[in-house]
């Protein structure tokens, strides 16, 4: 066999394989992506909540994107307790000032960052939340203090539309 012939075959082999691989990838991706959130799920991206009836020391739980959101109107003691914690005592260091821009209002996803259960209000060793599934304790700022959860409860994007209404998302 001459050298020239081998080169031509190599080229055909490589080119055919490349076309086949690109084609296969182009078909596989839609099959994978169809499982991602669809347009109707994404459309439910924001929700408005009336918080006028919420008194200090109470929590409102609303559903946003299928997940509970805690809206906590904190008392002065809770705020003080959250703000005096030293950063080195935290598993996931975050300042309370960054988590609650308006200190009276704490808005966060009511989802334990361990395996996704809903933590219980006013429970646990740090007067915040306690997750009954695998025993994670959160403080009055929703920060993880003890247990298997790796992060603080997530603060979603939200804003006050007016004095009584919070828009989440």
């Amino acid at each position, binding site marked *: 066999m001459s050298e020239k012939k081998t080169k031509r075959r190599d080229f055909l082999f490589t080119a055919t394989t490349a076309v086949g691989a690109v084609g296969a990838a182009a078909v596989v991706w839609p099959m994978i992506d169809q499982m991602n959130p669809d347009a109707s799920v994404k459309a439910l991206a924001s929700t408005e909540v009336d918080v006028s009836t919420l008194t200090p020391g109470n929590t409102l739980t609303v559903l946003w994107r299928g*997940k509970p959101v805690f809206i906590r109107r904190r008392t002065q003691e809770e705020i003080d307790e959250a703000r005096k914690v030293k950063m080195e005592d935290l598993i996931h260091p975050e300042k309370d000032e960054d988590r609650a821009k308006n200190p009276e209002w704490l808005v966060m996803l009511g989802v334990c960052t361990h395996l996704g259960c809903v933590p219980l209000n006013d429970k646990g060793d740090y007067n915040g939340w306690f997750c009954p599934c695998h*025993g994670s304790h959160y403080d009055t700022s929703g920060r993880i203090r003890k247990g298997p959860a*790796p992060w603080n409860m997530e603060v979603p994007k939200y804003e006050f539309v007016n004095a009584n209404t919070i828009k989440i998302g």
Partner: protein
Amino acid sequence: MSDHDYRPKSKVGQWFNDRLPLLTLANHLTDYPTPKNLNYWWTFGGILTFCLITQIVTGLTLAMHYIAHADMAFESVEHIMRDVNYGWLIRYIHANGASMFFLAVYIHIFRSLFYGSYKSPREIIWILGIIIYLLMMAAAFMGYVLPWGQMSFWGATVITNLFSAIPLVGEGIVTWLWGGYSVDNPTLTRFFTLHYLIPFLILGLVVLHIWALHVPGNNNPIGIDIKKPSKDTVPFHPYIVIKDGFALLMFMIVFAFFVFYAPNILGHADNYIEANPMVTPAHIVPEWYLLPFYAILRSVPDKLLGVVAMLSAILILAVLPWLDTSKIRSAVFRPLYKQFYWILVADVLILGYVGAMPAEGLYLLIARVATTYYFLHFLVILPVLGFKEKTIPIPLSITEPVLGGNPNLAMAKQKESKIE
């Protein structure tokens, strides 16, 4: 093998068999030489086949009445229980059938562990078995989600969240699995699809499992290689068919007890409350057959490492043929291994118990000790034991200990000479 020379008696049979040798296959299965000393622990292969068929048949009939939609799933299951003719019976057989399936598979696995059935030349049979076991767990988990009760919903949430432990891409994978930002209708419909698919994948793997078994033939209680066919074997039919059939009947009595007298004892009352994404049940526990692995997950205080430990506990079984360095298969001739075997059985039962208990205080401590021991057994004890253990001499054939009344060759010979 003799079955290659098989020729059907009738002309029609010969004509058909020349074109598709199904009759040769049937002949191979009936004549298949089986060790004559197989005990009742060997009947669980047949029992498991029965379990798989039962789950497929009852599952198909349930699917005719079930509606895979987050708003209707819970109601449709109650509809099956109250309105559909014999719906209660079919659903209770299917739900308890899952538990019976796992009961049988655990006995089957521990039988292999005791008699060393995973060792050369049967590694592929063993690995196929582990893949079947993994698929069984996936099918059971997804099936448990379908009634859309509280345990369904929160079980699905917790298990899918295990993937969020993967660095960087974890959250994206979880969203992809859910098809949304939480467990919801898209999750339910895809779980239903996969729950329907997996049993047929298992069926295919079972065929490979049995095919791989028929190459070297069955292991046996004394774990020696035997000549086939010989004085040490009996044909599968009728000897093993009758024995398997009798064991299956005994097993079905236990099965029927659960279906008719305690149909909900293995489930959780919380699953008769419709799924509520706002409230997590006070105490989430998986079904009993997953508890040992759940205990391992919770005994590690780090999220990622907990998931890694749990998966390793299952996957370590796949490399067992190479972790066990002993050439002797059966624990009958391994005095030390026999003791460690029973310690492992106790260890797994303890893990199952603490998996059902809250993860705190003494329970957590016990779970940690038991988890450590579990890995120690496979990673340290088994490899070392193969070199250190003084084993009992194995007999040359199955017939020998039966006739001599003692598995020890020398002692058997002595006895024989005394009789003379």
